[in-house]
């Protein structure tokens, strides 16, 4: 007899891409969210338009631990091509829901798995006309079966469909709900519903929203006052500019004329996208580009120019698996070092590492302020998991008292008060010179160049004059450590060890810490780094622990390297747990890795599956 696991399970839906399964999966996810239950959805999709296997993973956890888990209790197998793999991935005692319109080979059967066959195709062929409709409805029908099996509130589903289709598309609403009924009724008639893994309404998402990081970042750009966006399409960053475009069509339209208060330029490549953002930043606009690692590689020459010529602009890097083309639809944190030092010569850049869409919104605004205050490119390193998946996060809030930090800009009035304007002169001793906006005042005109220049802005090949400027820029960037978001630190009494991580690893690492304390009595301190250059707290945290395990999603321990390079912390105090196969991090891998590093391993990290 299985014990009930209410609001604590994971399921995975395997389909063929291009069959409309995304809307069905989104409907399930959103229904659970509307039931007030913490949930996450991870889209594991191919770099392809139609015909390849694709999965959607949903984790439900009443305690709020919704990092990815590789332990699936239920799999909806809609793609015969992946049956074997899907069945393999079920935990013992799990359930497989499949389309029984066609027989399932006996060789695929697993003793400890319950097979739930629903003749989805057959039912949809009988009920609906047209090939495309039947395929689409087949996906909606499994949603109905899941509703019965997991006890998803049918009123919530109905409500969501009504919101989607409204009265204008009544026929679509009816067809969709009919398909849901088909699946629901078949499951109720043929299986014991609900399963022991099931949902119960909660009140944990009332003040939350369901949003992806790219949409959130785009909204941040709108609120920060960005007016120029330049980009070249690349997965997984494309939806950021798409969202910015959509928001601008609603929120940036001039009354009366219908004209736009933003310029969005699709460039010919990432080089040009960077050039446009830099040109616009130079001309005084808040400007950004969004790309992924491959794009950053192409932009590095321009990034060096923006650094050296001190032009504010914001770069969103929605990281994906590298090197080279890598795996474009899988996640990684592989651009940490690239962004920290992008370009030839001596460069160092301000980088922000949001953990979820809420921080994407918040950090977008920070990024523009920091870029203008420090007159330099600023990177927001999100990733595919944050950027393209829907996350449950607290509703965004906005302080109407916020005003952009434009930094040290001299207008005509300011220029009138000084005798001569020199663009690169450190007047205040903080490493930040004054800048002017082109066209504002004849006195403010200067020549911007990526070639050697003196503090007066003149061309130079003189060693001392060159060093004076490049050294001042180093001071400026180092000073930014005090202005960037401080690390998030959670301390437990008497903890000897620290776990350090960044970005989207947050959920899995915090879940791992809780579980290790509950299950093994292991107390661990936690530090999530939110920005580079590192705030002073970062080095203090490392020094305060005998051993710090740095958990990140890349092969070469890039964050650990950066900590070694940029803090006084000794190497001996740092160890690594690394996962970089392209799927979001799960607590199980963190626990196995941490125990292994601490010599407590019952199982080695390598022994844990995908």
């Amino acid at each position, binding site marked *: 007899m299985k014990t009930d696991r209410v609001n604590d399970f994971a399921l995975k839906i395997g389909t063929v891409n291009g069959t409309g399964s995304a809307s069905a999966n989104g409907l399930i996810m959103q229904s659970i969210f509307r039931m007030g239950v913490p949930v996450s959805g991870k889209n594991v999709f191919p770099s392809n338009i139609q015909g390849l296997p694709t999965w959607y993973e949903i984790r439900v956890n009443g305690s709020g631990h919704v990092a990815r888990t590789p332990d699936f209790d239920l799999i909806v197998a809609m793609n015969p091509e992946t049956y074997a793999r899907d069945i393999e991935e079920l935990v013992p005692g799990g359930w497989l829901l499949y389309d029984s319109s066609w027989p399932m080979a006996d060789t695929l059967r697993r003793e400890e798995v319950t097979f739930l066959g629903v003749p989805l195709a057959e039912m949809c062929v009988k009920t609906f006309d047209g090939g495309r409709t039947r395929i689409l409805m087949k996906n909606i029908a499994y949603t109905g079966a899941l509703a019965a099996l997991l006890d998803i509130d049918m009123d919530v589903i109905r409500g969501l469909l009504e919101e989607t289709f409204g009265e204008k598309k009544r026929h679509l609403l009816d067809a969709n709900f009919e398909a849901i009924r088909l699946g629901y009724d078949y499951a109720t008639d043929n299986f014991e519903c609900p399963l022991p893994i099931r949902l119960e309404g909660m009140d944990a998402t009332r003040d939350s929203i369901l949003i992806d990081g790219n949409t959130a970042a785009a909204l941040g750009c709108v609120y920060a006052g960005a007016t120029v966006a*330049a980009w070249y399409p690349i997965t997984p960053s494309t939806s950021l500019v798409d969202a910015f475009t959509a928001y601008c069509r609603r929120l940036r339209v*001039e009354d009366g004329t*219908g004209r736009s208060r933003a310029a969005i330029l699709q460039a010919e490549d990432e080089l040009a996208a960077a050039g446009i953002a830099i040109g616009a930043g130079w001309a005084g606009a808040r400007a950004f580009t969004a790309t992924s690692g491959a794009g950053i590689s192409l932009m590095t020459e321009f990034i060096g120019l923006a650094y050296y010529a001190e032009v504010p602009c914001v770069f969103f890097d929605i990281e994906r698996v590298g090197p080279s083309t890598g795996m474009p639809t899988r996640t990684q944190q592989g651009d940490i070092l690239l962004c920290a030092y992008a370009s030839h010569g001596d460069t160092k850049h301000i980088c922000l590492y949001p953990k979820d869409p809420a921080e994407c919104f918040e950090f977008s605004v920070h990024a523009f302020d920091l870029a203008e205050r420090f007159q330099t490119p600023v990177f927001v390193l999100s990733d595919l998991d944050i950027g393209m998946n829907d996350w449950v996060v607290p*509703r965004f809030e906005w302080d109407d008292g916020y005003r952009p930090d434009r930094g040290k800009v001299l207008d005509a009035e300011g220029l009138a008060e000084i005798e001569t304007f020199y663009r690169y002169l450190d007047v205040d001793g903080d490493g930040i010179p004054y800048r002017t906006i082109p066209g504002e005042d004849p006195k403010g005109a200067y020549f911007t160049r*990526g070639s050697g220049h003196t503090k007066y802005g003149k061309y130079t090949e003189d060693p001392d004059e060159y060093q004076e400027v490049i050294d001042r820029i180093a001071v400026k960037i180092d000073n930014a450590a005090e202005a960037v978001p401080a690390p998030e630190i959670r301390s437990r009494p008497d903890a000897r060890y620290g776990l350090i991580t960044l970005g989207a690893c947050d959920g899995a690492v915090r879940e791992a810490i809780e579980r290790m304390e509950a299950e093994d009595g292991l107390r661990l301190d936690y530090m999530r780094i939110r920005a580079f250059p590192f705030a002073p707290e970062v080095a203090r945290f490392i020094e305060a622990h005998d051993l710090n395990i740095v958990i990140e999603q890349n092969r070469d321990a890039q964050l650990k390297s950066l900590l070694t390079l940029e803090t006084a912390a000794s190497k001996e105090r740092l160890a690594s747990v690394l996962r970089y196969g392209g799927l979001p991090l799960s607590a199980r891998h963190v626990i196995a890795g941490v125990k292994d590093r601490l010599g407590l391993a019952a199982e080695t990290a390598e022994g844990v599956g995908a």
Partner: protein
Amino acid sequence: MTYIAKPRVFHPSLEKNELGLTRRDYEGVMSTLCAGCGHDSVTAALIEAAWELAIPTHRAAKMSGIGCSSKTTAYFMSESHGFNSVHGRMPSVASGANAANRDLVYIGVSGDGDSLSIGLGQLCHAVRRNLNLLYIIENNGVYGLTKGQFSASADMGSKSKRGVPNEQPPIDPALLGLSIGATFVARGFSGDKDQLVPIIKAGIRHPGLALVDVISPCVTFNDHVGSTKSYAYTREHFREAVEAAFVAPKDFVPPADEITADIGSAEVRDVRMHDGSVIRFRQVEGDYDATDRDAVYGYLRERQNAGEVPTGLLYVDPESRDLHDVLGTVDRPLWDLPFEELCPGSEALDALMENYR
């Protein structure tokens, strides 16, 4: 040297434009190019054109990439902002600047290496984007700073200083521009300032990208016998296809008077631009029509096949729609919009949040 400013001594008798500025006010720092470099003549033409148009110097932005040509932005209009960016990338930087501030006069200066090799893609897409930019290519067929390699505009058979012939076909910026929708295409010769100044003036006023290819000989690496970009060769094969004059709106002579005006008896055709300015073509080639893209393309091919270098304001599209027309952006420069117009505020955010429930 670029950091040596010219002494600003003014003779009281120097002629002033309507802003009360003399030509000296449009000069820059001392040129560091080789004595006799064609680029310095282009600089002189730019100074003359900007002075004649009475552009407030601080309202112009000089954009360039890297190379001898790109250095020239330092040699004119010291009181204008300048941006000497990276090799071949001036078009994108100019695009961004123009997107942010549509009100400045953008003067881009590039070369054949900068625009036809490393920056060919950026050139093409800036042309397609049709941002409001004067885009001058100082074209000498050779890389100067790296000492004499052929560039992509070198003609087949043209010989290097060491006598080695170029065996790759050239990229002709004028033909290229015509084929990808450029709305203004001209070719000049640095040795003919009288022709170049009106072209530059018209190009600056053109609402869109004005692509001006200027044959600008490199005296050090490409001015020898056997080169097709030398002063001597260009003078010998130069052929003025069409003579164009830029007429500012206030100077515009109504058509009824034009035959009796200073144009003389030659056949005249005026092309009126959106802002009311006029480009007045005096046709030296019979039925040459500078608004007929295909005909101009055919003409250029024909004359080039005959070994000539056709010059003049070759093509103009009077219906040109620039970047901002296409994007539908507001009149006020984007950089200058008040924050209140950009940030929707907390109430709008609250409402928006309901879409993510």
